[in-house]
């Protein structure tokens, strides 16, 4: 390698290293803002001002879904295993919404601790399998199809 090329290669390496370091620092500084949702357990620690909008993420607790027979109003509980938050929502729910499903609700907490959702999204997990395999897992009692 000629000295000129060596010099250019050094410059290229320094450029990539510099940009990489800058990006790493920026990402670390923005860590909290990059989160798309927060879990019920993190609400206690994250000192949110009242009426502040945020996204709540977790699993729909089994047996907690209560639908109003007259309207689209529905209440359910979002849990992460340790803590849970009651959620109310009026609107059309995504196809994947059901007990045990990962969901992300956007809205705010009221003083009574009820989360008023304006939007509810289903979070799909990374598991793909045919229905027969899922049925076999169900029979064996193995867990599947839940968030993380």
């Amino acid at each position: 390698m000629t000295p000129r090329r060596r010099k250019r290669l050094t410059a290229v390496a320094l450029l990539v290293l510099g940009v990489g370091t800058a990006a790493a620092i920026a990402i670390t500084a923005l860590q909290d803002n990059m989160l798309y949702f927060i879990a019920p357990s993190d609400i206690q620690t994250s000192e949110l001002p009242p009426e502040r909008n945020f996204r709540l993420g977790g699993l729909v607790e089994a047996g907690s879904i209560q639908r109003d027979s007259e309207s689209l109003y529905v209440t359910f509980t979002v849990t992460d295993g340790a803590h849970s938050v009651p959620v109310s929502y009026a609107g059309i729910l995504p196809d994947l919404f059901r007990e045990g499903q990962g969901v992300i609700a956007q809205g705010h907490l009221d003083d009574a601790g009820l989360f008023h959702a304006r939007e509810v999204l289903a979070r799909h997990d990374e598991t793909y399998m045919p229905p027969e395999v899922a049925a076999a897992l169900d029979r064996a009692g193995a867990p599947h199809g839940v968030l993380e």
Partner: protein
Amino acid sequence: MWTQTKLAFHKLGSPLTFFRFAQALIPWLWGLTLVGLAVGLYQALYLVPPDYQQGDSYRILYIHVPAAWQAMATYIVMTILAVITLVWRIRTAEIMAMTAAPIGAAFTLICLVTGAIWGRPMWGTYWAWDARLTSMLVLLFIYLGIMGLYAAFDDRRQGARVASILILVGVVNIPIIHFSVEWWTTLHQGSTINLFGPSTMDPSMLPPLIWMTVAVKLMFGALLLQRARNELLEQDQRKKWTLQALRMSGHDS
């Protein structure tokens, strides 16, 4: 062995050798691409079972995932070519780095559009500003920026060198895209296919994904060689080798 590799590398720097190399390879790459796409799409749409949760909607992943992988792989190829451009100043590498950008942009767009189509029924929204989706959109803008910067220079070689610096700056986005689903909470799910660990897809659903991924890689090779060859011919239309090359491939005039 090393000297031979080095020699082959330097030979490809010659436009005429590159032209011959591309001419010989392109038909094979396209042929194999078509076979791969035909087998992959047939398996994806007819042979593999539906998903236990999503039914048939999940089949769009056989286009979405190979396109996403190729969108990122194209950028890595461009980064290597950008280093060669800046350090060794090999012209065919410059041209390949620049002609790869629109291909990468196209795959990124396919990834974003198929993702939105899937997201509407599954998540309940076409788009969300989470880290994975946003970093993928940034990749599209980086591709467009590289194309724009290159086109802004009258001197193609100078344009390629400046745009190569932008390629090197933008490469930080690639690990961000990959790790976004691990570092932060996102709407987008984590990785299903893991090279170093268990994958969470039933083995019966894997073959079409492999076929489609290989086919898309071959398609990228064919498109890149074709575009680079055309760019070389266009830039060198008044050079002697061009006449020689066109005579060789039977275009007498």
